[in-house]
């Protein structure tokens, strides 16, 4: 169960309270930022590092946060920028591509919540998860970002446009292409 972003304490009186409040921000939003980073990078260690960097950056720039958008939107925007920078650096450090902490697609399907499902149903879900996981790997960075924000983070198109620095039209186009590509790689012949 995720608490609403609006429930966040934004009124900060003293530096001590500020630290305490930001600590609450970290606890509250860590899972969301981490899962988005993990799904984007497919590397657990890198996702943890980037999530920490995201909160560190947010903490250092907390005075600039005007509250125009939700804290979640603000943090996701920071993490998108960090993921882009990370991607650029990784392209330059091509010899480091063999990552030991990279998520194995065959185990991605094990992340199924709840143990109450039957073994058969579990196998079906696992197959579906693996399929989508593999399919998102083939998406472009922008398509993957838009897809994850829409279907994992449940963000509105306008919100996605704001955090990803795109127009709403561009978001729609990327989303359409992402779904088409996923459907194709999941075994649908017709586009």
């Amino acid at each position, binding site marked *: 169960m995720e608490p609403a972003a609006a429930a966040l304490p934004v009124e900060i009186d003293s530096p001590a309270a500020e630290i305490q409040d930001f600590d609450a921000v970290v606890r509250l939003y860590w899972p969301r930022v*981490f*899962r988005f980073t993990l799904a984007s990078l497919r590397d657990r260690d890198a996702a943890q590092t980037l999530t920490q960097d995201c909160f560190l950056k947010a903490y250092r720039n907390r005075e600039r946060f005007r509250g125009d958008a939700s804290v979640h939107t603000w943090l996701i925007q920071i993490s998108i920028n960090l993921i882009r920078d990370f991607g650029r650096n990784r392209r330059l450090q091509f010899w480091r591509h063999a990552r030991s902490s990279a998520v194995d697609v065959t185990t991605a399907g094990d992340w*199924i919540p709840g143990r109450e499902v039957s073994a058969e149903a579990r196998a079906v879900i696992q197959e*579906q998860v693996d399929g989508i996981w593999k399919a998102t790997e083939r998406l472009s960075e922008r398509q993957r970002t838009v897809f994850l924000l829409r279907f*994992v983070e449940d963000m509105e198109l306008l919100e996605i446009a704001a955090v990803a620095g795109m127009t709403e039209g561009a978001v729609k186009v990327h989303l359409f292409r992402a779904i088409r590509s996923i459907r194709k790689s999941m075994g649908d012949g017709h586009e």
Partner: protein
Amino acid sequence: MNENQLKEAIAAFRGSIRHQGDQIESPGLEAILQRGQVRIRRPRSLRWVLAAVVLVLGAIPVSYEHAREQQREAERARQDAALLEKVNAGLSRTVPRSLEPLLAWEEIR
């Protein structure tokens, strides 16, 4: 794969990603800030090491070239001195070498 199957698959994917996100606990602000300080310090020391290496590597060809230039100058000075000696030796002769026997004859007389 029809529309419903795709929706189901995406929902399963979302569930698994969210579940995974919930498994990793937040390290807390203190740990994040501490790590931030370590990361700031480390690149600074690395930068100094890198700058020192670049400086040393840059200084090696310069000092080598300087030593070579000194050698060349010393060689030129030696050659000049030898030439000057030869010229002086030529100037100090009272008669050309071919007439030297006559000079000896004059001395005998």
